[in-house]
């Protein structure tokens, strides 16, 4: 389980580098973010929430059942819009209002 940073989208703002709790993301010579320690990701998704250009996808490794789907998130006002995209490109959205508490 880890993240994939799309370098075409990355604008090099460094927000993900700053926030990663494991100091796992670094800057490459082009000034863009890259995942240096792929196997050391905890899966907290802090970087994905921080990215303003939607350049980071989260995925599960095959060792824990991953089959190429990705998870991303966009924040719009009070809403967190989570998107799961499977390997064929089908997208499923789950919208969570930040002001709603968990039911459980």
């Amino acid at each position, binding site marked *: 389980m880890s993240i994939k940073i799309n370098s075409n989208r990355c604008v090099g703002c460094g927000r993900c580098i700053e926030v990663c*709790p494991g100091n796992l993301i670094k800057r490459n010579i082009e000034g863009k973010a890259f995942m240096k320690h792929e196997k050391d990701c*905890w899966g907290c998704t*802090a970087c994905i929430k921080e990215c303003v250009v939607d350049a980071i996808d989260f995925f599960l490794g095959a060792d824990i059942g991953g089959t190429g789907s990705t998870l991303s998130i966009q924040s719009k006002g009070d809403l967190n819009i*989570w998107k*799961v995209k499977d390997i064929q490109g089908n997208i499923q959205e*789950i919208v*969570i209002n930040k002001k709603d508490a*968990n*039911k*459980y």
Partner: protein
Amino acid sequence: MKTRIMETDVLIVGGGTAGCFAGITLGKQEDVKVLMVEKANIKRSGCLAAGVNAINAYIIEGQTMQDYINYCKKDAEGIVREDLIQNMSERFNHVTKVLEDLGLVILKDENGKYVTRGKRNIKINGENIKPILAEAVNRQKNVDVINHVNVTDFIVKDGRIQGAYGFDVNHPIFYEFHAKAVLVATGGAAGLYRPNNPGFSRHKMWYCPFNTGAGYAMGILAGAEMTTFEMRFVALRCKDTIAPVGTIAQGVGAKQCNGQGEFYGEKYGMATSQRIYGTVTENREGRGPCYLGTKGISPEQEDALYKAYLNMSPSQTLKWLETGKGPSAYNVEIEGTEPYIVGGHSACGYWVDQKRETTISGLFAAGDVAGGCPLKYVTGAMAEGEIAAEALVDYIKKVNYSPIKEKNGEKKKKEYEDYLTRGKNLLTIEQVEESMQKIMEQYAGGKSTDYRYSENCLILAEKKILKLLETLQFLAAEDMDDLLRIYEIRERLIVCRTVIAHLLARKETRWHIFAENIDYPYKSDQWLKYVNSRLEDGELKIVFRDLVTGGQVYEHKN
């Protein structure tokens, strides 16, 4: 390396739950200068990075503090400090109110009362709990935060804390902090044992993998007394994603069942360790795999689970959706994790007095590093941060402080530089980590041995861990990032040594799974005492202490 020397009244090492709450509390004392040092960034560092699903420690209507104390005592089989649990639980509801005022969403009923879950929990949206705490810290005028600096050693002189050493994790800068008092709040230790997913997803674990026992290791090296490291913690989790099970179990009332569909929970008892012991035993005796019986829950319940997990452990929701095996159609497989050392769940950590002062004068501990006080959860960590912060203010007012010019600073700086200038060799950080986890897994009660160990194996483990500690001096760091990872291994090895010594010392099996001693498979009343340890002249000395029970208060005797 460049050198930066900084002076402060209070140094807070670690900006997680406890550290942040201490920072917020100290913000009320504008004349006290506070410096918080964090190896990542307090916005998302520590256990709360992804969020949390509930406030798990709250005194709800109809329950009392004594009920909470009794719950802790029972869960830890008596090896707790009642004085500490008492003054922690006194503050649960107060710190929750502070959190709500800071912006945490808490579910309320039509009468404005918090909606409860079980006997001790209230329902929240905890996705942004860490940014809320961090923003509150950043608003305090007298609190400065330095992110991305890793602290490796305390400065202690004549039994009193003087400050700490560390380095910038990105730039070649050596830090020397001088302080009148220090709060250590670095969390517990993960990654000592081989993880459930040892390959690509090796950090998909229960506890924060970036909490590598820094605070424990620094305290051990400085000669602080530590308690109950033999009470390891193992969590019952969803298979593969190692996501929490409580939300499913309590949320939709799913019970533990084995591969034959039998509910086995009650057979073994419902204490934390018993629930895992039951699962391990069912598997060992051929009745696995084990599950939480979710099959048949409604689509609405399933949808609520998807959302709840996105708010705290998103990989579980991704797994459900990706595999097409949602919890309404399939039971959720469960397993025990690898063992961790974490004083917020078990009772291990610094031996402290009621104010959370350690046996080193002026060094206070809060959250997962502080021992004797299990089942803290988020509110307990905050309560301890607050207790320690109040005591720190009293301490610095009375302390006769004279800043010292430490010559050891240069020595420590050279230690860092040696790693950075040493030529690469065949030994790598990853190899040392793998070796450590293999030793702990095979000889010190890892998951693959059903958490069991024998004296002979522990003695072997001790020798091998000591040998591995010696090899650290041959590691080379290409950059500051490598240096961080070398010190994270060093911390874990130091913690491993203490864990082994404690496992050896407690000659009984008080807790299944947490300390499953093959040589002494039963518990005995003669072991109703604390196993403590102190490093003296390079030797780990074991100290036994009498239990501090109802009404008693422990105080350090200098």
